[in-house]
């Protein structure tokens, strides 16, 4: 598969601060790639470098194999959707969507046709003559989206386009965006710090932390097979249990041996992660392992109940359980079971995946 867009070794510094530290990634035509990471990790910076609003200190951006670093933004042919919509307040919805077509000198009959079809796609066909101050946030963002797709860009860039919308609308819009992107086959880079959103919409997710690309993979692998402790923790949340590498065993401080070996020297301090939904009150297979715990707090969440417990080594662990099993009493002792297959092992020092 040939790469349509490629980022190669991009470094960006603001004064003494290195915001992007050698980021490389590439995406084939038509892919929906999400940049995911905590606030301040450099997502916006990377997106703005791709768009041409910022110049990187090192590295290149390629489109179709061609380096586009010297191209100013207006010659890159990338559509962009902004967090605060950036819908021109002094132009009607129609004029907003027509803006990029006019810049390209498209003839007016063609403009009318394309704008109408773009507005229809974002379900704003009846709003063409309205002005932005008369639109809701969700409608403004749809205008922003229509404006960006109507030019049929090489690449669509979106910087947290949904973060100003309320929770329900966010879910609705992200589905619309995803469907639209599939239909049109536009190569897309989407920025968010919402891990659930990223899992829901992406073909692949690139996880950034402090300017480093930690992992780039399909959502399922990001969740189930994190390459780094940070990824395991940031996406979905995980219990972190202290462990040590011994000769022929990785032993939890709280008791059981979870694995025969890890790719580290004996004596190395490790962190083992277990997802909260992977814990049970009873074993479901012969190799399942047991943790003795004391319940600190039990919270009923409707479909699930969440237990917060302490383990024998004093560490805390959370488990999501079926409420049908009944609520244990706080203070009571219980056994939590898990399959060792679900345990992920990282070095405690730098979070590298070692098993």
């Amino acid at each position: 598969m040939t790469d349509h867009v490629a980022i190669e070794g991009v470094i960006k510094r603001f004064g003494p601060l290195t915001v992007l530290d050698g980021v490389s990634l590439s995406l084939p035509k038509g892919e929906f790639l999400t940049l995911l990471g905590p606030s301040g990790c450099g997502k916006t910076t990377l997106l703005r470098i791709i768009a041409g609003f910022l110049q990187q200190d090192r590295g290149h951006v390629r489109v179709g194999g061609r380096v586009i670093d010297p191209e100013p933004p207006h010659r890159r042919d990338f559509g962009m959707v902004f967090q605060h919509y950036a819908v021109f307040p002094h132009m009607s919805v129609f004029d907003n969507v027509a803006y990029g077509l006019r810049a390209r000198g498209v003839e007016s009959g063609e403009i009318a046709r394309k704008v109408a079809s773009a507005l229809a796609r974002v379900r704003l066909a009846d709003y063409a003559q309205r002005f932005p101050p008369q639109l809701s946030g969700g409608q403004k963002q749809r205008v922003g989206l229509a404006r960006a797709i109507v030019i049929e860009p090489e690449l669509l860039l979106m910087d947290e386009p949904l973060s100003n919308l309320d929770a329900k609308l966010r879910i609705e819009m992200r589905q619309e965006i995803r469907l639209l992107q599939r239909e049109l086959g536009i190569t897309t880079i989407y920025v968010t710090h919402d891990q659930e959103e990223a899992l829901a919409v992406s073909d692949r997710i690139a996880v950034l932390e402090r300017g480093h690309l930690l992992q780039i993979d399909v959502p399922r692998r990001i969740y189930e097979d994190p390459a780094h402790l940070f990824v395991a923790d940031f996406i979905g949340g995980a219990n972190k249990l202290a462990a040590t590498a011994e000769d022929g065993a990785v032993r939890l401080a709280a008791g059981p041996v979870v694995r025969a070996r890890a790719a580290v020297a004996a004596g190395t301090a490790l962190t083992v992660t277990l997802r909260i939904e992977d814990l049970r009150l009873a074993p479901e297979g012969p190799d399942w392992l047991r943790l003795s715990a004391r319940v600190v707090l039990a919270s009923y969440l409707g479909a699930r109940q969440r237990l917060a417990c302490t383990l024998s080594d004093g560490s805390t662990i959370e488990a999501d359980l079926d409420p049908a099993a009944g609520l244990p009493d706080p203070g009571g002792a219980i056994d939590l079971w898990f399959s060792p297959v679900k345990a992920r092992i990282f070095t405690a020092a730098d979070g590298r995946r070692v098993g």
Partner: protein
Amino acid sequence: MTGRSLAATLRDPWTLIGLAGVAFTLAFAVAPLLALFAQSLVGQDCDCIGFENFEIFFGSRYFRRALFNSLTVAGSATLLSLAIGVPLAILFSRFSFPGKTALMVMVVMSMLSPPFIGAYAWIILFGRGGMVTLFGRDVLGIELPTIYGPAGISLASAFSHYPIVFFVVSGALQRIDRSFEEAAASLGRKPTMVVATVTLPLALPGVATAGLLVFLSTLADFGTANILGEGERYPVLATLAYSLYLNEIGGEPGMAATTSVVLVAIALLLVLLLRAASGRRSVVGDAAAQQPKPVTLTGNAAWICATVTFLVVAIANLPLLVVCISSFLDARGAVFQPSFSLENYQKAFALIGDALWNSVIYATVALAVIVVVGAAFGYYVTRYTGALSRALDLLVMVPFVVPGTVLGIGYASVFNGPPIYITGTATIIVVVYVVRRLPYLTRAAASVVYQIDRGLEEASLNLGARPLAGFRKIMVPLMRPGIMAGMTIAWLEVFNELSASIVLYTGATRTLPIAAFQQAFNGDIGIAAAYAAMLVAITAGTLAIVIRLGGAEQTLSMK
């Protein structure tokens, strides 16, 4: 807040402040105007009420000409200063080029001299006995056009007012989030087209406001028109009102008042028109907007921009330079000689009397009052929503549409007897200074308060501080940086105030701008230069101190 009882409202100290504010503005801004309006309605021969004076005004070619002159001069000065100020503001806020910082300093410097000093400097250069005129005649053998008349007034006004445009439009540009321009660029527009289709339209409210400010200020500018229009030769409404007022005893009573009313009506009409126009489609600026990174110009574009900007700003600074240099030149008759001496200053000091001292005292007292009262008013009109607060908000802005000369004439006719008898005193000068500049500080303070989180004060009240203590301890420190800016401008304007005080001064309350104006208008050209240089030097000196103190304060708060 809706259910607040009357008793609670009355107990709030801010209600008292609001009431006092309304009373003050009614007495010192509204009453003089009403008095003028009343006078304009009194007939010539009888004491009957009617529009006879307005019939005379609009029926006479002379008055119509003054009206026409006023509008053309203010209109062309506005267009010119927009043509200078808007491109400069866009250039400075969106691009980097060589010498940008130094040029910025020069823009600020061109605000230092009051407009009439600029006018005077243009005469030193291009007047009948002007240096350039004489050089053209004696050396080159060509007769250059002189600076007197409408073109000269417009040019001089434009070059002294373009910084208003520059700063107002720069402020508007700062409130446009970069994402709008980035969206336009990502959709394929070239930078110049982005400015034309997005930046400028979004900054339009700012451009309109700036235009209005320049228009009102030129319309009201008595000094420039008087000096470059040579008094009666090229009359405009502002100079006409003044000379009619001086000749009232012999001339037609009520005509000064009538002219004043026409001036105020024009100003009011413009303000209302602008309001109606901008109310229809308001583009809300975002105080927390992120600025686009200025594009660094390279090659020819950079040098062309830097050179053109330098030329424009240099022309605007020429008056400053001319006045300062010529104050050290020997003057013979109406012509400067190419030899240096301190003679002008010796003569100037011999004649200065109390003028310098008066200026310093009046301006300082007025400034102190303006800052304290303006901060309180600005706070009150932003944080309170009742009828009293809305009334104060409106009333405090009244002097904004009243030319200084008009206000002066109003004061002279209202305050020369009970209940308030202050004509001829220092008090009347200080009061007129305060009333004229209070709108600026009130607005500056209001916009600062508007941006400060209400929760901070509520926290203070919640922790048991009394309302005024909360204001003093929480709001005043937070408002200070914003107020400093307003205060700086108020100081420049108050210290150089001419058009109202020229009507109200007496021998004992003469100020430095008045002395400078009188010498420039028909006096000794050398002494005029010396006074003008002193004005500029004091303004610049105090400004430098303020900036230094402001800088020191900032470094302190950083630690």
